[in-house]
């Protein structure tokens, strides 16, 4: 009898403690803002403009370009790929966002805030991006939790749910995909957690549920690169009536795929109509597959192929250079998107003509800085773009050592 009572008591204790634990799980346990005003005052004094990226460039630099947003055509998708307005919904996504249920800034300062930082996958670029984010977080004393789903949508969704479970003060997210970002942003928005999207430009609808978006203006950057590319093609082929080029594309689906293919296509249609697209292929990010593709192009198009526009300045660029070297085609102009060590070394040795300045550290840093600005009660635009710059042999030395 005594034993039974003891057992019953034990079971009851177990049940009660389980219930207490279970109930506590759902509650927020964030750090208390003991003195919001003092925090805000101290937070506003933090100077992040002195921070530097690994390449010696300022870590935080906003684009000085004033966005000129054209009027949206009635049906952009009906326009040809060569018309820049065909890409209106991607290029200008978010500038006119109809914000829904966006929480107001607490104006309580950024110091001590908890931010969950969900990236897209494991990559040297991501490491540099997270490093930049951490530098700004350290300056503000922000607790930054970095999570990587390794390009798995199900895992990223799970991480978002985990973040909702943990109730951070802010969620910073690189959506894996422009279109799936809508449901992800909506979910975070419904949970009442402030959200800033960064790096990958989502669809306009996703922007409605986020405070803002920060990152590179990939379309703008590619348009700039396309002009530099066309100038060099003309310089190397004076008087040519046709300048045949091919595109090594990004992985299909994401915004870089469109920006780095159709950004230049639509730009060159107006700026250099003599530039003709011979082919576009997405071989992935393996040097050997890219080399095979370019070798096939060289056989197929022969001297008609005057230039190659690549979506990636590392593995893809290596494959292109190898194929051109084997074929003895030093005359082909190659440009690529990106700012990796491989790309910069290739610009230095002349196998790449130009690459884009895409600060990985700055990308992460800008997202965290924007979060801090929101905690500090600053007005934020619907988009915050990183600066644009094209790196050539003339100034590549200024960007050493590379960020990744």
């Amino acid at each position, binding site marked *: 009898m005594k034993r039974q009572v003891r057992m019953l008591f034990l079971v009851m204790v177990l049940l009660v403690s389980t219930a207490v634990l279970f109930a506590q799980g759902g509650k927020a346990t964030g750090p208390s803002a003991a003195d919001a005003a003092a925090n805000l005052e101290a937070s506003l004094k933090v100077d992040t403009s002195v921070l530097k990226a690994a390449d010696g460039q300022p870590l935080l630099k906003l684009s000085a370009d004033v966005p000129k947003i054209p009027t949206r055509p009635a049906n952009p998708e009906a326009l040809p790929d060569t018309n820049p307005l065909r890409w209106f919904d991607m290029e200008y996504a978010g500038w006119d966002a109809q914000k829904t249920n966006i929480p107001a800034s607490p104006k309580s300062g950024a110091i001590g805030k908890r931010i969950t930082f969900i990236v897209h996958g494991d990559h040297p670029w991501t490491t540099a991006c997270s490093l930049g984010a951490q530098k700004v977080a350290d300056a503000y004393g922000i607790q930054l939790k970095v999570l990587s789903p390794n390009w798995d949508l199900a895992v990223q969704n*799970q991480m978002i749910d985990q973040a909702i*479970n943990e109730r951070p003060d802010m969620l910073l997210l690189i959506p894996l995909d422009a279109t799936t970002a809508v449901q992800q942003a909506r979910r975070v928005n419904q949970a009442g957690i402030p959200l800033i999207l960064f790096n990958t430009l989502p669809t306009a609808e996703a922007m409605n549920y986020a405070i803002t978006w920060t990152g590179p203006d990939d379309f703008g950057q590619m348009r700039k690169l396309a002009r530099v590319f066309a100038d060099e093609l003309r310089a190397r082929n004076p008087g040519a009536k046709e300048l045949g080029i091919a595109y090594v594309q990004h992985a299909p689906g994401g915004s870089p*795929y469109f920006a780095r293919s159709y950004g230049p296509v639509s730009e060159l249609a107006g700026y250099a109509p003599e530039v003709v697209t011979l082919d576009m292929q997405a071989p992935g990010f393996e040097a050997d597959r890219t080399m095979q593709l370019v070798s096939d192009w060289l056989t197929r198009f022969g001297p008609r192929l005057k230039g190659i526009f690549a979506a990636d300045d590392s593995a893809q660029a290596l494959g292109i250079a190898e194929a051109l070297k084997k074929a003895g085609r030093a005359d082909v102009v190659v440009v690529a998107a990106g700012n990796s060590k491989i790309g910069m070394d290739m610009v230095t040795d002349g196998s790449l003509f130009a690459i884009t300045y895409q600060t990985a550290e700055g990308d992460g840093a800008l997202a965290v800085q924007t979060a801090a600005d929101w905690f500090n009660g600053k007005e934020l635009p619907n988009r915050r773009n990183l600066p644009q710059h094209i790196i050539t042999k003339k100034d590549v030395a200024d960007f050493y050592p590379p960020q990744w």
Partner: protein
Amino acid sequence: MHNKPMDKSKLLAIGDRFRIYILFLVIFIFMSLFAPRFFNSYNLTTILRTVSMNATLALGFSVVMICGHLDLSIGRTATFAAVIALLLQKSVGYGLSVPIAIAAGVLVGLVNGLLVVKVKINSFIVTIGTMTILQGATYTMTGGNSVSLSGSNVFAISDFLSRPLLPMLPPRVILTILFVLLFHFFVTHTQWGRNFYLLGGNKMTAWLAGIHTDAVTVSAFILSSTMAAVGGILFAMESSAATLNMGENSLMYVVSATIIGGTAMSGGKGGVLKSVIAILSLEMLYTGTILFGLGNEVKIFISGLILAFVVLYEAYASYKHERTLGQRSELLKEVAMLKARVPK
């Protein structure tokens, strides 16, 4: 005198038989006690929602593996069906697009099964081929883009599938549980289901026993592709979107979990319930790594470690079994004890 070693071996046998349940309990208790914010209804709901897709995929995959085959096309079938369901939704609604997408899954399974049993191609080769064809077909259908839907109706369905109807149980999870119970019952309590084990254990014996081995094999592939399609469709309906690589990572995850769950790659052994419990265990482990603030690499490392341990253990068990094949283990033990008593 002889009881103690007997008890020990019995205990080990029981431990081996229920190892996945033990692993599940150990992980659950450990995470509940130590992982911050693990033991609460929101997190447990998230875990259940997350495992839904892979658990659905694992049901059919386990059946194929019990038959002694492999279906490497499940991930791509999930993506293919999800894309069909979403693309057609725009014109005919989910009412028709979902059955068409499931039918596409059935067709994939039928083709896989027929190629294996009639053309006698190894299932590994067949399903790699199907996987590649489906990838190409998906890219062609979508032009390389992800597919997404928006609008209040679509979001209402998405919200319905993801919000709990009962505590911790959203409809998608309830559906998955129903599928699991149905499959478990089918595989363990019906003649056709038990035929999968007979076939995987020894094809010739199964044939001599009067089992239509070709039909059983084809049915296993159809079940696998159908469940892959269902898993992909439900995931896409909840996300209102389908990416072109959404099923890519599921394959390795499901294969690992099925092996960890005790389904032998040689066939004839295992269970769908055990595969699902293995997926749940791995998911809890992954969630724990996130909650502890550990990186994705730790998660991959741990799951690799568990898989390596299980494979090594299986190899050791198989070696031990082969050594005693045709011998009575209890007699061997008595001989060993007698040897030990003989003074040197």
